[in-house]
Every structure is written in structure tokens, then in C-alpha cells.
């Protein structure tokens, strides 16, 4: 449905000296009906990528195709303007027009879009779209008199009313409070899945990304770092960056014995001892690497490899779970357990990690 190839964008740096690379050779493709997420910290290029897809930014080089039709191609010198790309978009600020009613906001894409509709057709489509987000009873309300959550729904109705070929969501949940955010997350996912509309979602929140997406592309400093299903990326990170960005973990530096390709089993020697695990990425023979220990993967077990003696230093009870801070010699390790498991501060046990849950990735290079 959407193909993005070799996207590159360079900005003049503020103050006029030098250039900043916003996008460097970004490529991906999205299947029909897929929920695809661009994830990364601020400044990673995810928004620039989305804006390029929308046509609000013009990249310096690369190609963007939608349903087989080029909407941008530096080689063929094609730039289709945003209004002719047939898209729907929900903005971070929602961008609900304050001088119009809810109805007029949602009717806008039908009135000013490519297809000319009669007033009856417009009314029918708008009310249908509003009913979809459960706001049909507020159609005639002036839009400044809406709550944040309602504005978000209007924005969604407006983005979907003209049946666009692609729905773009630019951090739509970041301005909502925590409870509403959880509810909207599910609602948006259910809605776009029911409509089977291809969706590109931009966020900096890995929980949102994992909870909503079919596939996630993690970005950093203008480049794609890893692309896969949420489970893949969480359980098989290919770098220290991915591992730490996708969730909390303890990173233990070490040296591998022998070389490995991604997915191979490999042994790493660390301060905590020898561990067998799965290589998240190719690692050279005897290369510096890092062992990733997810806090949920640590359990009590025998001291016979893939284990270390641990002392409980402190426990924080969080309700849904409890955080246990362990220490092995001088090395701090984080463990998360069920709130029903009794843990005594000061007690010692043998911590063990299943080799299938140990991830070994190349050592972190200094950040670019």
C-alpha cells in the first residue's frame, strides 16, 4: 500500500552554519490494512517521515508510492501536493477549526475535497462518521466547546469521513490524560481495524506503540534502527538502544566466545559469569557485546550456569507488580515480580535466566 524508499532530508542548522541530517536513507513498506508505527525519541525523524508521507514536507531525495502510484520521487521529479494525496490525518494539537461547528469541521474534506457531493450525501456521510466516534449528538455544537477527548474524536471523524487511502496519526494521544489515553488507544485500534484502513502512527511512547501496532519501526537520529512486530522488537532487540528504549532492562557488558549471526545461540562472558543466550544481531568473533536481562525474565533457580548469586537490597511495591533491586557483588540488577511473591530485604537467592530469554547484542557504540 505504502512504499517509502531511500528518504533523505537535510536541514540548514540554526544559525546558518552546517547541515543537520533529519532523515538518512529511510525505507519501509506498509501492507494494506496494516497498523504501522514510527517510534523513537524526539528528533529521531519520525515526524519528518510522516510529514513527508503527508506531503507537508518535501524530502531532498527518495521515493514515496501509495498503491503503486508515486506521490514523491526525486528521480522522476514528482511532488504530489498534500491535497491530492487522498489522506486523512489526526494532528498532535487535533487542529479542530474553532470558527466552525463540529459538523462543519467533519464536512470540510467533503466540501473542499476532490469529489463533489450533494448536501444530502454530505450530511449522511458526516453523521455516519460522527456516529462512528459516538459524537453524533454534538454535531451542531461550536467546536471550542469540546473537551480534549471530544476534540480528538472529531479529529478522527474528520480524518476518516472521506474514506482516505491512508490514515496518518501524529502523536494523537500525547495531549490526553492517562486514563483517557488508555481508553482511546483501544478505541482507535478497534476503529481502524474495523474499517481495515492502512494507518501510520507516530509516537515516542513504546507502550502505545506495542499496544496498537501490527509492526513498529524504531528510529534514531534520522535512521531506522529496527523493524518488526512489537513482540519481536521487545524480545529480540538488535541493539542496546532498542533494548533499553523498548523497556527497562539491566545491561551487562562482556565479550562473546566465537562469532554469531542474528538468532544464533552464543555464549558471553560477563562480570556476573558465563551466560548462554540468543544473538540479537551479528557479532564478530570475540567481539565486545552486551547481555540484556529483562526484569521479568529473572527467576530463582540452581547455580549451574546462566545464573548469579543475588542479595535483595530493596523492594518497591507498585500494586500491579513489585520492583526488586538486586545486587550481585557490586553489580545492581533490576527484577520485577508478581506482587504476591514474598521478598525479604536482605535475603539471598540464586537468580537464573532461561537462555531463550537472554539477549546478546553488539556493545553500544558511542551515540552519533
Amino acid at each position, binding site marked *: 500500500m505504502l512504499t517509502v524508499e531511500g528518504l533523505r532530508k*537535510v536541514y540548514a542548522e540554526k544559525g546558518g552554519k552546517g547541515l543537520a541530517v533529519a532523515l538518512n536513507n529511510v525505507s519501509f513498506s506498509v501492507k494494506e490494512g496494516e497498523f504501522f508505527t514510527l517510534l523513537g525519541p524526539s528528533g529521531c525523524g519520525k515526524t519528518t517521515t510522516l510529514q513527508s508521507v*503527508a*506531503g*507537508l514536507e*518535501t*524530502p*531532498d*531525495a527518495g521515493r514515496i508510492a501509495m498503491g503503486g502510484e508515486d506521490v*514523491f520521487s*526525486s528521480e522522476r*521529479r*514528482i*511532488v504530489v*501536493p*498534500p*491535497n*491530492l494525496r*487522498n*489522506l*486523512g*490525518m489526526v*494532528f*498532535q*494539537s487535533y*487542529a479542530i*477549526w*474553532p*470558527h466552525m461547528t463540529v459538523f462543519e469541521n467533519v464536512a*470540510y*474534506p467533503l466540501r*473542499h*475535497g*476532490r469529489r463533489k457531493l450533494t448536501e444530502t450525501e454530505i450530511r449522511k456521510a458526516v453523521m455516519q462518521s460522527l456516529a462512528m466516534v459516538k459524537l453524533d449528538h454534538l454535531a451542531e455544537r461550536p467546536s471550542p466547546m469540546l473537551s480534549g477527548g471530544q476534540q480528538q474524536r472529531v*479529529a478522527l471523524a*474528520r*480524518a476518516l469521513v*472521506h474514506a482516505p487511502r491512508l490514515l*496518518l496519526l501524529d502523536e494523537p494521544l500525547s495531549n490526553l490524560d492517562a486514563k483517557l489515553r488508555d481508553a482511546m488507544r483501544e478505541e482507535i485500534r478497534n476503529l481502524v481495524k474495523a474499517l481495515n484502513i492502512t494507518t501510520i502512527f507516530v509516537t515516542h511512547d513504546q507502550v502505545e506503540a506495542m499496544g496498537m501496532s501490527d509492526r513498529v519501526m524504531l528510529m534514531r537520529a534520522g535512521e531506522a534502527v529496527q523493524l518488526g512486530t512489537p513482540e519481536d522488537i521487545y524480545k529480540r532487540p538488535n541493539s542496546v538502544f532498542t533494548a533499553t528504549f523498548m523497556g527497562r532492562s539491566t545491561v551487562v557488558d562482556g565479550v562473546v566466545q566465537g562469532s554469531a549471526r542474528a538468532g544464533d545461540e552464543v555464549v558471553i562472558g560477563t562480570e556476573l559469569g558465563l551466560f548462554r543466550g540468543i544473538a540479537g544481531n551479528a557479532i564478530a568473533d570475540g567481539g565486545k557485546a552486551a547481555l540484556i536481562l529483562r526484569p521479568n525474565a529473572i527467576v530463582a533457580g540452581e547455580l549451574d550456569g546462566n545464573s548469579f548469586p543475588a542479595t535483595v537490597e530493596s523492594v518497591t511495591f507498585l500494586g500491579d507488580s513489585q520492583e526488586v533491586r538486586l545486587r550481585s557483588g557490586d553489580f545492581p540488577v533490576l527484577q520485577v515480580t508478581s506482587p504476591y511473591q514474598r521478598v525479604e530485604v536482605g535475603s539471598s537467592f540464586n537468580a537464573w535466566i532461561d537462555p531463550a530469554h537472554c539477549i546478546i547484542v553488539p556493545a553500544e557504540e558511542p551515540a552519533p
Partner: protein
Amino acid sequence: MTAAVKGGIPLQRPVTVLVFAIVLALVVLPLLVLLRTSLLPAGQLPLESTDVTFANFVTLFTSKNSLTILSNTIIYAGSSTVLALVVATVLAYLTERTDMPGRFLLRTVMFTWMTIPALIVGFGWILLANPGSGVLNLWARQLFGIEGALFQIYTFPALVITTTIALVPTSFIMISGVLRNMDPQLELAGSVHGARRSTVLRSITMPLLLPGLLSSAIYMLMAVIQTFDLPLVIGMTAKVPVVSTRIYLLTAPDVGVPRYGAAGAFGVVLLALASILVWAYLRLTRVQERFRVVSGKAFRPKRVQLGAWKYPVAAAVWGYCLIMALPLLMMIWASLFPTYRPPSLETLSEASLDVYRTILENNAILRALWNTALMVVATATLTVLLCFFTGWLSVYRNDGVGRVIDALSFIPMTVPPIVMVLGILLIYLKTPLYGTVWIMVVAHVTIFLAFGTRTMATTLMQLNRELANAAMISGASWLTSLRTIVLPLIAPQAINLWLWSFAHAARDLTVPLMLMTLANTVVASTLLNLWQFPNLPGTAALAVMFSGVLLLLIVPAQIYISRRYDQD
């Protein structure tokens, strides 16, 4: 690398190119022609000659006459500014910081007064204080038996005083703003620590106000060195030529041919003078931003109790306002009699509106009224339209194009209107545009470009860009998104700018007079023509009608805006 891909949002490129070309033609062309003209030998036209000479500048800086003109200008501007600053500071302090009765009314009166064209006030002063039949002199003779004339309007001091009075309302508004932005807690802290009121005023209030006062002073200096109407009607008879009237006379002499080269040289000198002032102004206001004394809404100043001085002070202030209003009252009186009669109670019974009837039956005047209406409406509309695009481009185009348009549109701020108009006159002198209303529209739009672009840019900066982007994603073209989303959302500020341009174009005399032919007279130039004819009652009646219409249109809007400003 960016050049690899052409295109983007359709129409944005042609519109950008068009706006850029218009701004370039409006702003840069007149200045280039002006520079060229200042190097022109006598008796030649700028666009028809390739000769270059520095004779104009040599004459300017060696002739005793032109050195007098320069020193006149500096003394005139300096003394009126200082006087206006003193009066305005006292009035502003009384309204903002004391319990003087009628302080709110005083603010409204000051706002209102800015609407009355200075030309009309100048005529009023001449009726009041001319040495022969001036009303004040007649009364002085009758009441005190004074021989000769006590009040002499045609003198340098009189020119300074009338200019001062005309300048006070603007400076009052500026200084009130400075006072209001100051945190009164700083003064309070002074008195808590044992200082007396006069000590606080001297050692805390004044130093804090100084940067604000200085920048207001520079702004006013700029206004006076380019002012034209009072030096024309009072200064010429008083034999006090200044640069602005000199430029006018060189281009439209009573006898002989225009001396464009000499006028151009004076224009360049005036431009240099103004540029220095603008540079100082920008520096000062930047310094002010840095030392801005932030005040919260919660800290409304405690007003100084005037006590026993309350009523004497109020009487003095309202006495001043009466003096300020005298010229207009005089014009109203003069408009009521077909031949001029000195004011007295006996003659009042003979008052009639006959003059107004005659005026409104005069075809030349009717045409001037129509021209004025056309000129001000076209000016206001085109100013808003052009400034919307220049403002948009300077905010949303982050590349060189946006910055260049931003810089170009600021230039008219530095150029005294008379200099800009001189340039425009020289460009269009030999084209069909000369002698039409439209050349005046071009001149006004150019002069208003700087203020208009600033206004629109500030407004657009506060508008979330996603609002317009959402429209384009929804399928609207760029122009449709501007028309249906951006314009409606900034409508209040656009209407404000429209009214501002309307009022300023209507009351301006510089542009109509410099560009006047028989065909394109407007009210301002007709007033001057009637006065010089001389048709005193006709001048008075037209002036009163004109002021009335302006007041009715502008004052309600201004009161509304200042109310809204107060609520913020």
C-alpha cells in the same frame, strides 16, 4: 541538493514570486530612483539621463540656505519632541498613577484626538492667533486694550508649540504603556524602606522609565522630522523652511521647473537621518526587552492621593484639553457663516448651514470626496491583502525567501514618507498612472507595508500551523486553506489593520500633495487648495465634515479595541 526536486504545493511558488516582485517594486525601486536622482544634473529627468554629478550634494552642504534648513529641522524636531515628552509624561503619570478625577475620560479624549488631521488643527490655530484678525488677538485688544498682536502664529516658537500639541496624544499613549508595564512593587519597596514620595519618584520611578521614555522620544523625533502639514501651513509663512517642505517646494515650485536633483539630495539626507534614528530605536527597544520589568495582573499600582491638589490639577489638565480643542471649535464656528465673522454671541443668531450646502453642490469637491473614498478603501483593502501574504511568507518560509521579504517589508519604516513619495513620483511621472488615484494607493500601500507586515506576522505566529495543514490534508488547495481557515481565524486583526490603513490614508497630506494633479484631488489636498484660494468658510465646512466622518468611523473601533486591551 534541495534543487533536485521542483514543485511542492501548487500556486505557492507563483504567489511567492508575485509577492516578492511586488514588494521589490514597491520598496526598492523608489529608493534606487531616488539615489539616482540625487546624482542628476539640474534640468534633467532621472529615467532619461545617464549623466552623473555630485553637484546637488555639494550645493546642499555648502549653501548657507540649505544648512539653515537642516539646522531648522533639527531644532524644530528636537524642541517639539522634548516639550511633547514633558507634557505627555505629566499627563500619563496623572492618569495612570494618581486619583485625578476624569482620568478615564482623558484617555478617551487623547485617543480620539489622534484621528483629527493635523492640517485642520493648523488652520484652526491660524484663525485663532494670526496677527491681523486672530480671535485671541482681537479679544486681547478688546479686553486689555493691548496694541498690536499678542499672539504670533507665523513664528518659529508658534510652529514648535502647535506641533507639540499635535504630538502629545501619540506620546501620551506610548508613555502610558511604558508606565503600565512597570511593576509598582519596585516603587513600593522604595517607600517601605523609608524613602519619601519625591525621593521614590526621582531615584526609582524615573530611572526605570528612562529607556521607555528614550525610545518614545526617538519615535517622536522620527515623526517630527518627516512631518509635513504644520510646517507647510504655518512654517512657510513664518519663513521657517524645514527639509520636508523644502523637498515639496523643489518638486512643485510656484515658479519655474521642478528641481528633482536637489530634491533627491535632500531626500537622501533625510533618509540617512531617519535611518540613524531607527537604528537607535531598534537598539533601545531591544535593550528594553532585556530589562523588561514584568508585572503581573495582581499588582495593580496603588494610586497616589492628590489630596488638596486634586481639583486644581484636574482643572489644569482639562484647561489644557480645552486649548487643544480650540482650533477645532474655531473651525466649526468659521463653517457656520458664508463670510468669516469673529466669534461673538450676537453673531451666533446668524449662523446657518448654508456653507455645507454649497460645498456639497460643488462638483470639484464631490469628485474629491469620491476620490478619497476610492483611495482609502482601495488602500486599506490592498494593504491588508498584501501584508497578509508578506506576513505569511515571513512567518512560514524559513528559507532565504522568507527572510528577504521580511527585511524588505521593514524598509518603509526607515524611509520618511515624503522621501518614499518623491521616489514614487519620479518613477511614475511619465506613466499613465501619474495623475490618478491609484498612484496614491501605491504610495500609501508602500508606506503602510512595514506596519502591516509586522501586524500580520505577529498574528500568524500565534496561529497553530496545523490548522492550515489539516485543511490541505482534507483536500483543500493552498489558497482554499488560506481563504476558509486562516483568514477567518485572523479576521479581527485583519479588520484592525484595515481600519488603521483607512484612517491613516484619509488624514495624510504628504502623498496627495506630492502627487497632486487636477484630476486626482482628494479631501486633504482640496482642503489646502480651498484655504489658499482663499475660501475660508468652505475649508472650515469641509474640514468639519471630514473630521466628523473620521471620528464616527474610527473612534468606536478604537474604544472597543482599547477596552479589549484593558481586559487582557
